[in-house]
């Protein structure tokens, strides 16, 4: 087995007095797809937001592709260059066209000439199957299309790891599939992915490992087959019985 590309060890985080993350340890190997699930408020978003330093933490260490991110968040920029993120609420830049959304970071962070950045962005937009919408503004597209643009935008920075925070929760049911399909394609290309989602179908189909969190800690982690067929912990069983009904 290769070295882990993301290595989280002894991660502890407090919001004021509230202990959100408690001793979280998680290793993600290159090309691995991990689905994180758990009840609302269990700290799933907080955990993956720590990985690209959108949240600071008080104890522990996160290493991404050999770059160390301690509590003082020293190598924030270097880590963020390796990690792409897709948000529940898309967070596209509404004042820029789809194409400009996708070329902004390559031009201003990687100093790539505009022409090359646009050519590259069009490739990614083709991959998420919306090249013909490149000159629209985000507000003129459906939620599913916007989320696919957000995925393309993250990909333009050629990240080694992609983080997804409930990418389909804000979508109407018929749009969920188009976004999940895009993510499945991405998984098949070998991208390392950490996905917070309640789409258990996606977890079964794509994940190498399912991680169940509750009350700020990892309760159980297992392959999807084992996880769904034979959950060990009582809380996991309760959770699964509620969502799988």
């Amino acid at each position: 087995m290769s070295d882990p590309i993301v290595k989280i060890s002894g991660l502890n985080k407090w919001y004021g007095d509230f202990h959100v993350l408690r001793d979280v340890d998680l290793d993600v190997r290159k090309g691995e797809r991990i689905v994180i699930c758990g009840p609302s408020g269990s700290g799933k978003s907080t955990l993956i937001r720590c990985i690209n330093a959108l949240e600071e933490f008080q104890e522990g260490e996160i290493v991404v592709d050999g770059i160390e991110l301690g509590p003082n968040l020293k190598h924030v920029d270097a880590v963020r260059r390796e990690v792409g993120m897709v948000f529940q609420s898309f967070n596209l830049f509404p004042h820029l066209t789809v194409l400009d959304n996708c070329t902004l970071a390559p031009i201003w962070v990687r100093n790539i000439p505009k022409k090359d950045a646009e050519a590259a962005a069009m490739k990614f937009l083709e991959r998420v199957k919306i090249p013909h919408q490149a000159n629209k503004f985000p507000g003129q597209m459906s939620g599913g299309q916007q989320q696919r643009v957000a995925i393309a935008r993250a990909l333009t920075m050629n990240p080694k790891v992609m983080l997804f925070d409930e990418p389909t929760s804000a979508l109407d049911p018929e749009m969920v599939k188009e976004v999940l399909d895009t993510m499945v394609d991405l998984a098949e290309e070998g991208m390392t992915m950490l996905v917070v989602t309640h789409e258990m179908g996606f977890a079964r189909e794509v994940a190498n490992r399912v991680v169940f969190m509750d009350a700020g800690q990892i309760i159980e982690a297992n392959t999807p087959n084992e996880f769904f067929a034979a959950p060990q912990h009582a809380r996991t069983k309760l959770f699964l019985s509620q969502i799988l009904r």
Partner: protein
Amino acid sequence: MSDIASSSFVRQDLLTERPAPVKTTGFVGLMRTRLFNSPTNILLTIVGALLLWFTIVPSVRFLLVDAVWSGKDRTACLTENAGFAVGACWPYIQAKLPQLIYGFYPEAERWRVNLTFVLAVVLLVPLLVPRLPAKGLNASLFFVAFPIVAFFLLHGGGIKGFGLSWTAGLLELFDESISGAGQALLSLSKTSAAGPLLWLVGSLIVLVGTAIHWLILPLIWLRDQIQGAGQSLWADFAVTAAVVCLIAFGLGGGLRTGWRALASSIAAFVAIAAVIKLMGLDRGGLPVVTTNLWGGLLVTLVVSVTGIVTSLPIGIALALGRRSTIPLIRIFSIAFIEFWRGVPLITVLFFATYMLPLFLPGNFTVDGLVRALIGIALFTGAYQAENVRGGLAAIPRGQGEAAAALGLSWWKTTSLIVLPQALRHVIPNLVNSFISLFKDTSLVSIVALFDLLGSLRASFSDPKWSTPSTAFTGFAFAGIIYFIFCFGMSRYSLFVEHRLNAHRRN
């Protein structure tokens, strides 16, 4: 009628278009559907018509129908001579127009003001028309080059040194003030109770001052050499140009990618040299016209354009500072904003004009107009800060997070993502402040600056034109001028708002 109730139906002949039974278009339609369609609307229509009648008709009578259009002096505008109740006395405006535009600016030099106006229009109009190209060059010409050229055009005078001697002078001043502070502490230590401590700090500061003195000595020496030689300005210019071009080349990426930066900085210096040569700045420049001779529309425009152009960056900086996580910056911004918002503009102008000179060190004077300009810029800046803050607050947190997740730094996130959106949200408020600034410039007349309104009131005292309607004519004229500028700004802002918010229309 065909029978659609039966299960099958095929239309035999297509129906032709026919007009609506009740007229909804044209004048009659407008009356029926908008003006007289309900008792309330009938009432409102009548009230509105009466209002128009009582405002528009007298205005038109005064300004146009009963106006006197030609004449040599007051006699033409007197009811006895005209034969009717005289309204506006336009020959008076015609006679006083130069004063209203230029104030006491010497007549022989007024071409300089005209040239400045022309330059401003030539640079501003292409900047305002979105379709025209080269916005970057245009903006830098208008915001950087134009103010400098305008200063030497309007004020006159030349320059003796350039970048090198300015830098040397500034550093010298800095060094002197540090040494001065150290000396003051040292002399204080002889009498104060905390003597030893003061002495220690004082000698430390003096030491720093001496160190700086030795550090900048080569620079001062070079300056003195250049000043000693003939053609000192051009030698200074050459040295400055060479140094700046080299720095630009280095920062631009050196041998690999620095050529563009090098080329553009050389071009900039060639342009500067051309301007210096053209305006004869190296030979004393144009005759000096001190600002107390400026007046009329010239002062109004100088004050308001400077205020508008400088208050926005000040406001943006303060608004960002107010949201900063660094306590010192935040507290400073809040204190600054609240102070300036809590003081009336008149107080600010009085303070700037009459009190500021008392605080400045002895031989250091600032021109009266410049003092008013600074006061107005800071005052409006504080208001703009609150406008901008409103826009910043409307940007969801996710925008900044998404930008951060893409690896954009705070500066790039702010300038590319947050500010463009925030400013779009508050264009109406910003322009509202600009408009009120434009009108508030009339307050400078209380600190002995003769803006449009000040010049107008000065002209009232001319016995040659004193008639019953002189003051009304003058105020009507000033009102029209102010209205044209303010209405122009308002319409343009609507246009910009509409254009920039393309993304909000589906």
